[in-house]
């Protein structure tokens, strides 16, 4: 399993507890947050879906629809009010340390120690997962080569790197820990066209060469259509539709002609793509 990263299988790690078919399964997950004036905001409303082993599932939704809360709950950073989250059959709320070993996340903000170099950040990130510098260095070299990142620049402070380069380092950091479940929360938002293409190419490569399962939250229609096996549409904390791209489009077709994913999204959410991308509260 997973030639490039050389991981052991999930079954090796968790034995019989590993789920047979699902990498991630959410059932009836709910989450509300209290705001300062006592009002309650419902971020997730009975969210249920699964990501199969080796599958890429995309979640499309406007800003503030609950995508980031969803990723934070799966990555054990937020505890749900109700429902269950299972990663390879292991309850992520009851056994966070077990599931943390097998997943990693890339978010919209690169989130590094800005004064440290890319290499120092990567070595630090690897050690938190029990990987020594000696083990990490050849892997870092290999991954950086794969993403077309000049090794010399890995010694520069992160704050000297462009957003696109920082995002490549964020992907490298995630891959370095050998995740079998990758959580990508708008990894290309705010990137220039070239960097976006590079990062998407890298995700495609992960998809093609690894059997990692990926949950990709985005509001980029092309990205979702190109990278995902199935796409879900999320509005106001609810998954209103989840299917393969073509099936999803057919579901919202008004006439004989199959709509684009953008048209499908607008029909499902009642929002234009511009409105969906506008600043919201997540």
């Amino acid at each position, binding site marked *: 399993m997973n030639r490039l990263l*050389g991981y052991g299988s999930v079954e090796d790690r968790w034995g019989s507890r590993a789920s047979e078919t699902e990498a991630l399964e959410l059932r009836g997950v709910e989450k509300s947050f209290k705001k300062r004036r006592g009002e309650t905001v419902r971020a997730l409303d009975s969210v249920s879906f699964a990501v199969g082993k080796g599958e890429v599932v995309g979640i499309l939704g406007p800003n503030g629809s609950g995508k980031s809360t969803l990723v934070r709950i799966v990555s054990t*950073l937020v505890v749900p009010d109700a429902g269950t989250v299972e990663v390879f059959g292991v309850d992520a709320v009851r056994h966070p*340390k077990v599931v943390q070993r097998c997943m990693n996340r890339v978010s919209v903000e690169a989130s590094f120690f800005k004064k440290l170099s890319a290499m120092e950040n990567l070595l630090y990130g690897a050690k938190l997962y029990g990987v020594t510098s000696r083990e990490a260095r050849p892997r870092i070299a290999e991954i950086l080569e794969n993403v077309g990142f000049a090794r010399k620049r890995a010694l520069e402070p992160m704050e000297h790197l462009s957003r696109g380069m920082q995002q490549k380092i964020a992907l490298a950091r995630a891959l370095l820990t050998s995740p079998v479940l990758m959580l990508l929360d708008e990894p290309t938002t705010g990137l220039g066209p070239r960097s976006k293409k590079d990062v998407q190419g890298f995700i495609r490569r992960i998809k093609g060469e690894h059997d990692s399962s990926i949950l990709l939250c985005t509001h980029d229609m092309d990205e979702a259509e190109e990278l995902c096996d199935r796409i879900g549409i999320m509005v106001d904390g609810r998954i209103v539709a989840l299917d393969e791209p073509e099936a999803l489009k057919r579901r919202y077709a008004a006439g004989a002609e199959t709509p684009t994913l953008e048209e499908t999204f607008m029909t499902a959410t009642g929002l234009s793509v511009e409105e969906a991308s506008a600043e919201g509260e997540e």
Partner: protein
Amino acid sequence: MNAGRATRPLWLSEMIAIWGYVQRNYFLTKRYLMWEIVWLVYVTVNAMAITYIGAGAASFGGGTIDTERFMTYLLVGALLWNYLSMLFDVLSETVSWERWEGTIEYTFMSPSSRVTHLLGMGLYAVVYGIFQTALTLGACYMLFDLDLSHANYWGALLVLATCSVSLVGFGIVAAVLPLLSPEKGQGVSYIVSSVLLLVSGVYYDVAVLPGWMQAIATVSPVTYALTGARAALLDGAGAAELWGSIWPLLIMGVVFVPLGMLVFGLGERYAKRTGKLKRSG
């Protein structure tokens, strides 16, 4: 590489993570070297200025004062407070610092345990604090005619080491405050630090304080560390005489470290339930 990691015992992974935190802080110290030098100069000059208070005390009618002893008393207070407050601050700023850098979510979603995280922070603070204090002491030693003829350095180090453990626990308890309140938590931990400075007898004997402050001083590890370290450095007190300072520190270490971990765990759970982990304001 990952085959090795998969079969690696948990304790070894945690040790690697502790080294990761120590090494990261070392890298950061290197990157902020100019600021570290500025801070070292400030701390050294501050210690010198406080020590000169002792030199000037005689001019206020204190003819019977043993000036050398008083200056050494003040310097020991300044140096120890610098070390212990740094230890407390590093621990108590663990959460707010990572929030400021934007890395807190990555640290909290990693599989290394919170004990590992906080011990890694504490270990670096101890090593760096000792290094910084030694440099300050060296600079002051060249400038002042200090009365360290009877000093029991090993005894002072023993007291300091014991106090470091209990202060790490104390700092961990304070570190939970920014988790509970992102806006006000760090501010409260600074108040705790300033109260420790006031009541622990850093520059004067605790006996001069009002009764209620003396009561607070009995639960401050800094009080016992200063009493013990001064006894060792000024009077050359041996292990038997230092025991009176060491046993309260041992008890505080046994109580504060697990209590700190427990409180931090509850605070982390609260922050994850309310979504306050990432919020910085």
